[in-house]
């Protein structure tokens, strides 16, 4: 249902010895785990962003870390590019395959290897589904904090690649704040453990840099995640406001009062109406905006703060406030929000899910500008966002069968990102750059910034075989590993040459 602007399938000049690579992979993994059948590999041609498609030459289904290591080493030896994929729910084409390469699918690596409650951590394989970590930890009173909307299907390996957030990262942080260690196969086929059982170990924080590198620095084979103690108390509130400006003012008041809610979510009239049609979430009638505010923590703190939050909502024009009395009512409040993306499919044939960030205080101005963009272009935009941290998910609606509409929608979508950058924000808050947003990276970063980031990439992947074409608009040629050189060049010193 969900789709964006269709771009022609990526065509790449074949790199490396694909046939030799495939033959070796079959020897290593067995024929059954190496797929080349055109019909079957086609099912992997895109991830959650279906507007980017590319049929992989080979799909492999490793079952353990050693097989992943062998696959990567084989690709490296044959000069064949490779891309890792978890559940394929990403929304930036970060797992877009290479038509001349190997797609490493981790769906057979779904074991929770260790649940170490004493150290409040779990060790999981990359294919483990996000929510399954919480399910395993729940009996002990713990949970895994990152909660992207796709948490029922998305993989922890994918979360690591994308540094996934979710509604609750306002208070609890992103995946990078919850990963303590990771076994990683580097692009030359070496397995390395980044991080470890002891915290804050000396050395470059390669783990911190790896998380969120969108699969361009290696393939993760096991992840040690931090488990958080399930809070003593959780309270959820739904408030209906006449306009998004009113709701935004309420959010500002809550934050200014020194409150850090676990989540603050906003939906505008168009997205409310879509959710209403799709899941009958029964949000306050006539609301121009709804806010969902969730608080968690020690009981006494939460109760006190909850009253304060309600008062701020009322003071800023909320005409209806509902509080969840139990888990069922809480789920009902979240139902509309969580189904918002899919629900939009009911009111529009096609749509683009945008992901941009602005400083929260710029919200009223940016929403006004988005409304102007929408009015002047005739392209409808539904707004759903994490209001607490200024992470917008405008849904740009269009009908791809209508000539010119796709282009107009893409233009509006791009203009929204420009607004984000103009206000000091970011072109992506949680979906990643992937293949989709490489064209916007130059709007946020200078060539020097990007070159510096790619220095790290060159340290890990000098051949550029690991998920190439993602994150960076222009691949950097790494060249030879620079040799160690100290002091003035002898020729310069001798006055025979100038150093450039």
């Amino acid at each position, binding site marked *: 249902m969900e789709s964006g602007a269709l771009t022609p399938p990526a065509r790449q000049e074949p790199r490396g010895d694909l046939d030799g690579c495939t033959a070796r992979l079959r020897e290593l993994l067995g024929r059954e785990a190496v797929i080349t059948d055109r019909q079957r590999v086609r099912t992997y041609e895109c991830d959650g962003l279906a507007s980017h498609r590319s049929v992989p030459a080979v799909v492999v289904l490793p079952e353990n870390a050693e097989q992943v290591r062998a696959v990567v080493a084989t690709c490296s030896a044959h000069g064949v590019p490779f891309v890792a994929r978890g559940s394929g729910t990403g929304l930036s084409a970060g797992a877009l395959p290479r038509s001349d390469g190997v797609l490493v699918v981790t769906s057979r690596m779904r074991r929770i290897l260790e649940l170490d409650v004493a150290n409040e951590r779990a060790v999981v394989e990359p294919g483990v589904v996000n929510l399954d970590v919480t399910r395993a930890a729940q009996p002990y009173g713990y949970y895994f904090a990152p909660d992207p909307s796709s948490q029922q299907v998305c993989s922890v390996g994918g979360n690591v690649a994308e540094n996934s957030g979710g509604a609750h990262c306002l208070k609890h942080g992103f995946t990078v704040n919850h990963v303590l260690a990771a076994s990683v196969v580097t692009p030359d086929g070496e397995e390395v453990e980044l991080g470890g059982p002891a915290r804050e170990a000396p050395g470059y924080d390669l783990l911190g*840099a790896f998380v969120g590198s969108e699969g361009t620095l290696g393939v993760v084979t096991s992840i040690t995640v931090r488990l958080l103690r399930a809070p003593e108390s959780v309270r959820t509130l739904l408030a209906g406001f006449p306009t998004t400006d009113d709701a935004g003012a309420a959010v500002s008041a809550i934050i200014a009062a020194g409150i850090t809610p676990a989540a603050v979510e906003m939906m505008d009239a168009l997205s409310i109406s879509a959710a209403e049609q799709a899941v009958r979430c029964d949000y306050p009638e006539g609301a121009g905006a709804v806010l969902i505010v969730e608080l968690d923590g020690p009981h006494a703190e939460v109760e006190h703060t909850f009253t304060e939050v309600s008062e701020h909502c009322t003071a800023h024009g909320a005409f209806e406030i509902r509080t969840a009395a139990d888990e069922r009512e809480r789920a009902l409040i979240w139902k509309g929000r969580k189904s918002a993306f899919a629900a939009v499919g009911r009111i529009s044939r096609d749509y683009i899910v945008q992901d941009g960030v602005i400083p929260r205080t710029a919200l009223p101005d940016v929403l006004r500008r988005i409304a102007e963009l929408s009015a002047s272009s005739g392209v409808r935009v539904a707004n759903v966002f994490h209001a607490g941290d200024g992470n917008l998910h405008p849904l740009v609606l269009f009908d791809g069968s209508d000539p010119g509409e796709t282009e107009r929608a893409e233009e509006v979508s791009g203009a929204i990102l420009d607004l984000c950058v103009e206000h000091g924000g970011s072109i992506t808050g949680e979906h990643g750059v992937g293949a989709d947003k490489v064209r916007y990276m130059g709007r946020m970063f200078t060539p020097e910034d990007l070159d*510096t980031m790619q220095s790290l990439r060159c340290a890990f992947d000098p051949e550029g075989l690991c998920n190439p074409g993602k994150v960076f608009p222009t691949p950097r040629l790494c060249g030879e590993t620079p040799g160690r050189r100290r002091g003035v060049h002898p020729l310069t010193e001798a006055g025979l040459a*100038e150093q450039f």
Partner: protein
Amino acid sequence: MGTPAKETVPEALRRAVGEERVGRPSASDVVDGGAPRWVARADGTDSAAAILRVAAEHGMTVVPRGSGSKLDTGGPAEEVDLLLDLSAADEVLEHAASDLVVRAQAGARLRDVQDVVARAGQQLSVSDPRPTATLGGVIATGTSGPCRQLYGGVRDLLLGLTVVRADGTVARSGGKVVKNVAGYDLGKLFTGSYGTLGVVTEAIFRLHPLAAERRWVAVRVPGSESAAEAARLFRVCQAAPTGVELDRPAGGEWITVCAELEGRVGATAQRAEELARSFERTLGTAGEVLARAPEWWDELPHEPGGTLLRLASAPADLGELVERVGRVEREHGVSLALRGAAGLGVLHGAVPAGVTPETVARLVEGVRVETGRLAGYTTVVHTPRRVKELVDVWGPVAPGVGELMRRTKERFDPEHRLAPGRFVGGL
């Protein structure tokens, strides 16, 4: 197009940043016992870049400095050609209070930044007991205090970074918003990199609201096992402590474990009382509720001329860690003062001044063996230069990780001119 080879270093530096910013080192510019040949002062990114370009042209080794409070930390400094002094780059550039974000220059003192943001009822949830510590210094060394138990370390609060690379190129990563996954997060890479990858000139941090009320719950217990149990109870309790610390004075058997709680007026005190009472049941001794932090809270046990170690294990191995350190102490006849993040399993151990460098070195090796058996580590934070010549202050790293670190250094500083030899593995 290069600089005429005849131009001398001071001439080139003066041309780049002006007469008054270039000089010879004073006593406070000494790096790890050795004086640099030149000192150049930068007041911001542009002048730091100009200085680093000169350094690149002349092939000079460079050590960046904020207030110099941690300048003796790290491997033994090789001969330093140029000290890049950033203490004049000390401005808080922007405090977006409503967005809970602060942007400041690297030479800004942490305490000054705290003063600025406190006016809006906010805090940067980083602490360093060294009173002159700068933002650049806490980033370069990855230093924070007790509250990292709840808020995370420097790397978790750093949103954006401006660095100058070895060749003088200015690069930025991250930004002014908390949620941002565009591009690699170089802030993580640079945090704790000890100036070996580039010079941090500006940083953007997220802030938190200042708590309306704070309480400390302290419990005094005999021996490592009960201290570990107390730390565990604090760690898993529902009161969500911001920090869980322990203190064991040198030669002592009794250990104080203490947690900080913060939150709303009234509610915090109530939580503290409940928690303190619960220890009667769990530990057989009630905790004490304090309205002020114990005097040792967020202070290093270190004394001038002594040696400060950092030792760590997995959090659940805390009892074993303290026990094993005790054995090494007895073996060498030296008593350490232990203090630090019991909740994280990362402690400081202070060797008093006056212990011979040879004994300190053997003690470090002994503790390192024990922490190694617990899959932990031991590093030396502060120590006399002589000790550094006897023992590696960093200790070993796994070969695969060491190789990746070396490759990273090669890409960022191929000529090994930035803080050479000061980091893990001799980088």
